[in-house]
């Protein structure tokens, strides 16, 4: 198999018993799967466990993989469910959904107001180039509650739709939207404290007009 082979070609070869093709698929997707697990779980050890489980499960189920979705999507779902299982276990909620009974009370009236409002010193294009930025993003993500972080990772980092995020997490779409808003606002707050230009800061007292 050439390095330029498509995933579909590699999957067909792997299904025919070609281990090298499966290793090529692994090499191609391992970083994304590991990053997903790491971002969801915030633990290097758990991220490794989930990554290994996901690929082992891919080996075991490859013959049954019907290719209705792409290999990337299929693998991605396996990894997401493995990561969710770890989170539920941590919470002692093996069979309970992530939707908590008190969730209905988390409504729009209790959304925290933006506190630190300022233009950023640099554009996202400039920031992405900088090594410290990755660190800052991960630190801010780590500060979110699990329930907010999971929604943000699936929706904004991984690019799932609101509906796909809701289905994956077993939540209502309304709940996904609420959590996403909280996550985005909290991350904005956190990042702006570091990236904001203090000279352009707008004091909160000016923010109460109609």
């Amino acid at each position: 198999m050439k390095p330029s082979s498509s995933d579909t070609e590699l999957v067909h070869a792997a299904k025919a018993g070609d281990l090298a093709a499966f290793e090529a698929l692994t090499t191609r997707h391992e970083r994304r799967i590991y990053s997903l697990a790491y971002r969801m779980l915030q633990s290097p050890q758990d991220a490794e466990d989930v990554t290994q489980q996901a690929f082992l499960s891919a080996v075991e189920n490859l013959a049954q993989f019907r290719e209705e979705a792409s290999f990337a999507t299929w693998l991605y779902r396996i990894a997401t469910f493995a990561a969710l299982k770890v989170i539920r276990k941590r919470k002692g909620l093996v069979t309970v959904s992530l939707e908590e009974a008190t969730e209905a009370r988390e409504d729009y009236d209790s959304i925290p107001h933006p506190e630190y409002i300022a233009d950023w010193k640099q554009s996202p294009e400039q920031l992405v180039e900088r090594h410290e930025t990755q660190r800052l993003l991960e630190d801010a993500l780590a500060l979110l509650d699990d329930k907010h972080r999971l929604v943000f990772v699936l929706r904004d980092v991984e690019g799932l739709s609101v509906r796909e995020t809701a289905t994956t997490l077993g939540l209502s779409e309304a709940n996904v939207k609420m959590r996403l808003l909280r996550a985005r606002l909290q991350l904005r707050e956190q990042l702006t404290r570091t990236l904001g230009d203090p000279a352009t800061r707008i004091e909160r007292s000016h923010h109460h007009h109609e």
Partner: protein
Amino acid sequence: MKCEELLKMLNEYVDGTVDPAICEEFEKHMAGCNPCQVVVDNIRQTITLYKNGQPYALPLEFRAKLHATLRERWLERPPVR
């Protein structure tokens, strides 16, 4: 539209799924409210940064172990129909 109402519609606005009539009100509010304008900018930039974040590299030791484990499992039980 008040700042509080704008905050509630923020997702729909930045994701481009807001109702056109509400979108117009939203933009009218922003034009006269610098703080809200900056918050919306910040939110967009926040999402862009995370979307474009680089995936992590696997720790080398883990990567070697992962590939060894997969080879072993493959050879034990090849996934051929």
